[in-house]
């Protein structure tokens, strides 16, 4: 119940400020443009490039959505209200996560126009990778948001929160490159942590339970750490 209260409050905040609209508009503009250019030049009815591009752009856009979640509460001292209310850090973090995640899902729904356009003009295109691709994108979104939320608990400065999540997410994105560079166990390990490598498998139409579990564990881990950081403010 209190999780829902926090969630509702955060959703209100997103839509009262221009942030959500601006992120939505620029995301849809870029993805729409890329969808059109790629479709016209390649003449292949596939969503794979668009889903790939969407994932990369979302990696850059999601820190903008998550940076204010806790930082702003610290800056404006409203965190004092939350932490002196009968509400746990877990409930605060979960409410904030869900609000941002719902926003993300809405954004995903807005991109459904592209597969609809494809299906209207093409008779034989493979829907399998689209389903798995969207599943991948949703899981990836949860991962982005949880990491961004964690970064936001660290500081009262939104710019720092955004930079930490950009940096962290880009590192997790490119860890996979090491696999080819090292070709040893260490490279393998880094490759396993790569968000991109895992996501790419969804785009090929493969739903590997290992990949699903990875994203879930990744998300839960950062949410847990965010909760701990918030809790530690109380006993530091």
């Amino acid at each position, binding site marked *: 119940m209190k999780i829902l209260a926090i969630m509702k409050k955060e959703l209100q905040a997103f839509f009262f400020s221009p942030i959500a609209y601006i992120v939505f508009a620029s995301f849809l503009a870029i993805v729409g443009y890329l969808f059109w250019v790629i479709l016209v030049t390649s003449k292949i009815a596939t969503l794979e490039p668009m889903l790939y591009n969407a994932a990369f752009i979302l990696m850059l856009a999601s820190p903008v959505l998550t940076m204010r979640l806790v930082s702003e509460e610290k800056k404006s001292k409203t965190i004092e209200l939350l932490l002196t*209310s009968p509400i746990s850090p877990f409930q605060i973090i979960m409410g904030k996560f869900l609000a941002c995640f719902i926003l993300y899902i809405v954004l995903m729904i807005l991109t459904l126009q592209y597969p609809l356009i494809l299906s209207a003009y093409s008779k034989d295109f493979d829907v399998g990778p689209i389903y798995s691709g969207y599943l991948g994108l949703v899981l990836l979104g949860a991962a982005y948001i949880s990491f961004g939320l964690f970064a936001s608990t660290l500081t009262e400065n939104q710019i720092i929160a955004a930079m930490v999540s950009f940096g962290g997410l880009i590192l997790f994105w490119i860890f996979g490159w090491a696999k080819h560079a090292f070709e040893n166990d260490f490279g393998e390990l880094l490759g396993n942590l790569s968000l991109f490598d895992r996501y790419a498998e969804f785009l090929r139409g493969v739903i590997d339970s290992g990949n699903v579990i990875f994203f879930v564990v990744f998300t839960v881990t950062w949410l847990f750490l965010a909760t701990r950081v918030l809790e530690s403010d109380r006993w530091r």
Partner: protein
Amino acid sequence: MIEMHNITKYYDNFRALNEITLKVERGEILGLLGPNGAGKTTAMRILTCFLPASSGSATVAGYDVFEDSLEVRRRLGYLPETPPLYHEMTVRAYLNFIGEIRELPGKLREQRINYVSERLGLIENLGRVIGTLSKGYRQRVGLAQALLHNPEVLILDEPTVGLDPNQIIEIRSLIKDLAKDHTIILSTHILPEVSMTCGRVVIINEGEIVAVDSVANLEKNAKVSPSWKIVLKPAAGQQWRDAIDRCESAHISDIKELADAFEFRLELTRNDMFDDLFSSLTSGGAVFREISPARATLEDIFLKLTSSEERKEEA
């Protein structure tokens, strides 16, 4: 209702509170008084479970602030130094949100929102966005937030800051009203506020309790001599001055020369000398324009207590 036992708080190496021991009974209004940086806010933050103490223990309504923090937080309303407001929300949406996290069920929440906004003069502003409110109104919304769930214990950090004089009077009487079934701690650096609202005063300076007593007792025990503000039109020359100088227990200060009179502050270490002195002045031909008692204010007491503290340290 509220107990602090040997609470000490360090911020890194800076000692903000030193062995504070304090007890507040149910239904009492306790005033925390002290200069900026004395540790008032820190003490309040410890009681509201926002900050841990470095050592010592504190309980609110019988629950330990560290061990049973959730139970403590259920029972208290807190107005921090900066009212914790979400500027993009309307007053109603904000209070509704507070009601939700304060565990008020739907119907009761609605009732309480109407009640507190009525008490605080917010009814007409329920639909306004908090960011567009003036400072005084924001302070009221902050107070509404602390009162909404009708908590047993209220902790108010400078509750009347930013309010206009009428509002201050209303808020003070509201606070007095609340004391019937609430226990209240409020901090302030406005001295008259303490004498008007609080049953007992704790004076804090540099993290230590300098005095705990009722306002009346403090005034009595501070041994600040009674004094008067006097405007006097003398008959001739320095005669009035001589009359005063002859009286050993009289002391004058702050002498101002007006057009045809003198204004000064008269202090008498012996109360019974009042009649003698005054009759000798009038018989000399002086005319009194004004005699008003300047009571020992908390300000005097405060200065006396905090400065004697310094003297002790020097010694």
